[in-house]
Structures are given as structure tokens and as C-alpha cells.
């Protein structure tokens, strides 16, 4: 949506490193981010009007884990809060809508997850149709392999293109203190690796991590009081496609394109952070968004450098917002995705003050 009544900006961001296995409770991950945000802005807990978190109980196998997570936000005396069983990027979307109502000004948005206890491939197979695909254990990595092959068969990419995405992502991740992957294999070396979900190799699949991310968003002039260079949300929207993979054109992402059109996604971007959970998705997303060479894509390394499930999408927003805050970017696009084969896509366009 671009036609909105209130300007809202991201004024502070925080994220934990992406951990292969965090040896502690999920609320601690959240607590570290929340305390960091409060310290950065000088706000007290009671200054936050609305708290909204995205997480998934299945990751660590703890029913009502999302309720325990409230321990991390400082929820006593009781606070006004809500939860989405989705990536924190969708919590951001809901918080942004809530701020449009005009009666409150400050929202805390969180995304978090501890995937290390579980089997990601088995858990996310349950996202599929419960009658037709979940009983087969048809998992996102396998569906990603099917989508990648559709790209190859349509001559829209080669396996070398997939490897090039990984090589460049890992190179960028080397400069990101929060990334998990510390490798610098060349594309040629990567192509020597065995298949994992052919034609994808293990490195083409973003490595699942434990972690949390959070941000503070503030409406109106108050944002400028709290932050020297707020990242204004110019537009935010999401769109979804069929959950039957056979009913989609897997070589394209029309939901990404229509969400971007809705938020004025044209024009140039200094930076784009894309939720590339499988290397070939970057190729699809670049085409759907019409990104040119003048846009730096995934300077953080993106999810291929570390994928803290349920925070990964919100981290994309944070990476763009922090580049606007430090002046290295003026206008940026953040993308988050949910479901198999880029089924659902969210686009958030951020802009700094002139």
C-alpha cells in the first residue's frame, strides 16, 4: 500500500548473529534485541505502544513457545501485543497497518526462531496441502529443486548461475558479522559438489540458523526525534499464489511483481535485500522486480549466508533500513517470502530523508 494516511519510519534495528545452534532459550535471543533497541533510542519499555512478534512453535517443538517468547519483550505490567505464526516481516506489515489507525505511535516488531532442535525439511513439509502433498512429505527443498529445474528447462538459468549467486552471497557474508557461513569457494568449486535436491546442491539451500531480529517503528515527526536518519516506509504489501505447485508458473513470481507494483516498486533502488532461501530464487526475483545493475543485491550475503527462520524476512528489512540510516543508501527494497517456491511474497520500500 502506498496510499496511506501516516508516515511511519524504522528508527532502530537489532539482530542477533545467525547461530548454527543457540545454546539457550529463545526469549534470551529476543531479550538481547529488545534491550539493544531500548538502549539505542533511550525509550523505556512503557513507551512502546504495540508489540508484534512472528515465530513458529513447530521449529523447536514447544507448544505455545510464542507465549514464552513474551518473556523476552518485558511484558510486565501487561503490554498490548500480538503474534503472527509467520516470519517477522509479516509482523512488520501488521504493525504498520496498526499504526495507520493513528491512535498510537510506537511499535516493536520481532521475528525469532530456534530451528536447531528440529528437522526443518520435515517440519516445513507440513506447510503443504494436508490432503495432497503433506502426506508425501513433499518438502520445500524438494519443491525448490523442481522450481530450479523448471528454470533450467526454460533456458532462464544454468547451474553455473546458481553457483554464481552462492559465490557472490558468501563473499558478501564475509563482511557481515551476523552471518553464519564463513566460506569463499569459487563457483567452479561449488559445481563440483554433489546434488542435494537436484539440480540444487547443499550450498544452494540457505543454511538454517537460530536467531532473532527486532526493530522499532515510529509514526510521524516523532521518528525524527528518535533517529537522525529514519528509514521511511514508502510502501509495504504482500501477495500470495496457489499452494498447488502444478498450478503455478514456477519460472516466474507474479505475486512478487504485483506486490511491488502496488507499493510503487518501480524506479531505482540503491540496495535490495531479497529473501533468497534457495540460490535460483534470486534469478526469479531479479526478473520479477526488474532490478538492474545499479541496484546492489543482498550486500549482507542474504539468507544463503545464514537463515534464522522466522527472522530472515525481517532481517532483510533491517539490512535495508540500516543502510539508509548510515547514509550509504537513499532508497531500498526489502523482500520476504513464505511458503514453498516463493509462494507468498512481501515487498517493503524504504526511503531516507532527502
Amino acid at each position: 500500500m502506498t496510499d496511506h494516511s501516516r508516515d511511519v519510519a524504522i528508527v532502530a534495528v537489532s539482530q542477533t548473529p545467525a547461530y548454527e545452534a543457540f545454546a539457550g532459550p529463545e526469549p534470551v535471543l529476543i531479550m538481547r534485541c529488545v534491550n539493544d533497541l531500548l538502549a539505542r533510542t533511550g525509550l523505556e519499555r512503557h513507551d512502546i505502544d504495540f508489540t508484534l512478534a512472528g515465530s513458529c512453535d513447530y521449529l523447536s517443538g514447544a507448544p505455545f513457545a510464542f507465549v514464552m517468547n513474551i518473556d523476552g519483550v518485558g511484558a510486565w505490567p501487561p503490554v498490548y501485543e500480538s503474534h503472527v505464526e509467520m516470519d517477522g516481516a509479516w509482523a512488520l506489515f501488521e504493525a504498520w497497518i496498526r499504526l495507520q489507525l493513528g491512535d498510537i505511535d510506537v511499535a516493536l516488531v520481532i521475528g525469532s526462531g530456534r530451528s536447531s532442535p528440529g528437522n526443518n525439511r520435515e517440519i516445513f513439509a507440513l506447510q503443504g496441502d494436508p490432503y495432497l502433498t503433506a502426506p508425501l512429505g513433499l518438502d520445500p527443498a524438494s519443491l525448490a529443486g523442481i522450481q530450479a529445474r523448471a528454470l533450467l528447462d526454460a533456458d532462464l538459468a544454468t547451474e553455473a548461475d546458481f553457483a554464481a549467486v552462492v559465490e557472490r552471497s558468501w563473499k558478501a557474508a564475509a563482511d557481515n558479522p551476523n552471518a553464519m557461513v564463513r566460506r569463499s569457494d569459487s563457483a567452479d568449486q561449488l559445481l563440483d559438489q554433489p546434488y542435494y535436491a537436484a539440480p540444487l546442491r547443499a550450498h544452494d539451500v540457505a543454511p538454517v540458523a537460530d536467531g532473532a531480529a527486532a526493530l522499532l517503528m515510529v509514526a510521524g515527526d516523532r521518528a525524527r526525534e528518535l533517529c537522525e536518519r529514519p528509514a521511511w516506509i514508502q510502501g509495504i504489501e504482500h501477495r500470495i499464489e496457489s499452494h498447488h505447485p502444478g498450478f503455478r508458473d514456477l519460472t516466474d513470481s507474479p505475486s512478487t511483481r504485483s506486490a511491488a507494483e502496488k507499493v510503487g516498486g518501480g524506479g531505482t533502488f540503491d540496495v535490495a535485500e531479497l529473501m533468497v532461501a534457495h540460490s535460483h530464487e534470486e534469478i526469479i526475483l531479479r526478473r520479477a522486480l526488474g532490478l538492474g545493475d545499479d541496484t546492489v543485491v543482498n550486500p549482507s550475503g542474504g539468507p544463503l549466508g545464514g537463515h534464522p527462520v522466522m527472522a530472515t524476512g525481517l532481517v532483510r528489512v533491517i539490512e535495508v533500513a540500516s543502510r539508509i540510516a548510515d547514509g550509504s543508501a537513499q532508497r531500498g527494497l526489502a523482500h520476504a517470502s513464505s511458503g514453498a517456491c516463493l509462494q507468498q511474497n512481501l515487498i517493503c520500500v524504504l526511503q531516507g530523508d532527502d
Partner: protein
Amino acid sequence: MLPDVDLLLEYPYTRTTGPVLGQFLTGLRDGHLLGIRNGDEVLCPPLEYDPATAQALDSELVEVATEGTVTSWTWVADPTSTHPFDHPFAFALVLLDGTDHAMAHAVDAGSIDDMSTGMRVAVQFHEERTGSITDFHFVPLDRAHAVDIGAGAEGAEPVTDIVQLIALNYHEPLHAHRARAAQALLDGRFIGQRSPASGKVYVPGRGYDPLERVEMGEDDELTVADRGTVTSFTVITPVDYYGQKETNPYIRASILLDGSDSPLISVDIRNLEEEDIRVGLRLQAVWRPEGERDLTGIDNRSVPLEGVIERWDPTGEPDADANKLREFTQ
């Protein structure tokens, strides 16, 4: 040495099929593959609605061919426990002859070298069929073999629901503070964590103070008493559900140990009757003998105290003032 946490999480779901998927699954059980008409198109798997316009479709299904063409595929070299085969196989999109959208399913091809886009495959029905998408898989066309599908299904009722048992396995070490608290229980004592910010003592410690938002560690730990006061209780009458082991009513109590500011919750009480328990009652833990203490089932969320504590005996002391316990009863 305390073992890692191994948790099996199960959710049994029973889902109604609705008219369209019900016919489809009944067809599979009876050895037929059915699709649905959508204008000039035939959709298999069938949907209740036109995927583009959301218009309801005529729920009369039509038989479709059991042969088709692979439009894309991947190779599962290392199957998980929820995959349909325990040997390598392909997941593929298969466009059945005469239909207009591909179906996602498994192809048992034997080798990745036998898979290719455009290859011809056929439905292989299983001998045992229950009305499930797993009643068949695809095979390369020349490898399909005939299955006697006549008997058994005849006269059977239409499929109207499916049972889906979700079973997920989790494995992780105990968090460090949990491991220390568990070891203390095996040694016959409770330890808690004292908040460096507020001085409040949490039993068991969570590794942090949720009110003050500070992390807590070994330096914040202390032993608390193994006697305390009932702050709340409930009598649970078991209802039957998947996994239920209880048959008779039982008591679960919250107990505020002396020296603690947070009650142990959901403590299993078996040696008292409903009329013997009340808020304010003083109880003493009676530990199992040292060699018999067992923390099987402990995880990073809950501690099965009944493995280390045999029972909770009333101490005979006067009751604590229930009014002063109100903050713990909510």
C-alpha cells in the same frame, strides 16, 4: 551425565474431505484417478474452485488417464522419515494425459539417470489402499505392473475424512542452567536463580529474569528449601484423547518453595485427596532414594518431578495466610 533431550511431538488431525477431495480419495482407494472439469480444462488433483476466478466447480468428477509426462522434477538422494520411500526417488510434477495442470507426486525411478523432463510415467497403485494420496506413486511407463484392484473396495463407504498423524522428532542438549538444576534434583535439592536486578528468586531458573529483562547464570544460583506452600491447585478429570494415559481424577498444584518468589507449577500430587488440599497448606518433598531418581522426559521446558520426588507430605505446620499468596494464584 544427563542425556540430551529427545522429544517426539505428535498431533493427530482428523480432517473432513469435502465433496470433491472425498470423491478423489475414494477413487484412489478403488483404483481410479479422478479429475474435475473447469470449463474446457480438466484439473487433477481436483479443486473445489476455479483457481483463477474462485468460482465453484461442478462437483461431478471425471476419470482421467493414469499415464502422463514429467514437466519438472528433483531427486531426493537422502529421504527423510516422512518421505514415501526409504531409498532415493524423485519428486516430480506430472501432467496426466488429458489434464491441464500438473500434479506433484513421487516417482520411484531407481536412479537419477532414469529421470528426465518430458519422460513418460504411469500411476502405480498399491495393493493396500486406504483413500489417501499415498495409495499410489508414479513409475517410468515401462515399469508399471498390474494390481488386482477389484476386491476389497466394493461396497465400501465413500471416504469422508482423513486421519493425519503429525510426528516430528526433536533433539537438543539441555540448556546449561537446566542441566545444573536437573543435576541438583538428582542430588536431592532444588536450585533457583536470584535476579541481580530485583533480588527475586526464580525456581526453576529460566536463564533470565522476565520482569527485569536480565540474563542469569551460574553465579546467580542458590539452593532453596524442599518444603513450601500450596498457592493454587486444580483437580483434573481426564478426558480421552490421543496419547492420554490418565484414567482417574488427579491433583496438580502450584507450590511456592521457602526462599523462592515463583511457585513450581503443575506439580503432580498423588498422595492427597481433593478434600485434603487447600491454598496455604504446607508441604514437604519426600525424595526418592538416591539411586532411584530418574529424570526421563525432562526437556528445556518442563521437569517431571515425579521421577525424583516420591510424594509431598503435609508438614503439620499451621497453614500460611492465603491472602498473602494471592499474587501467586493468578
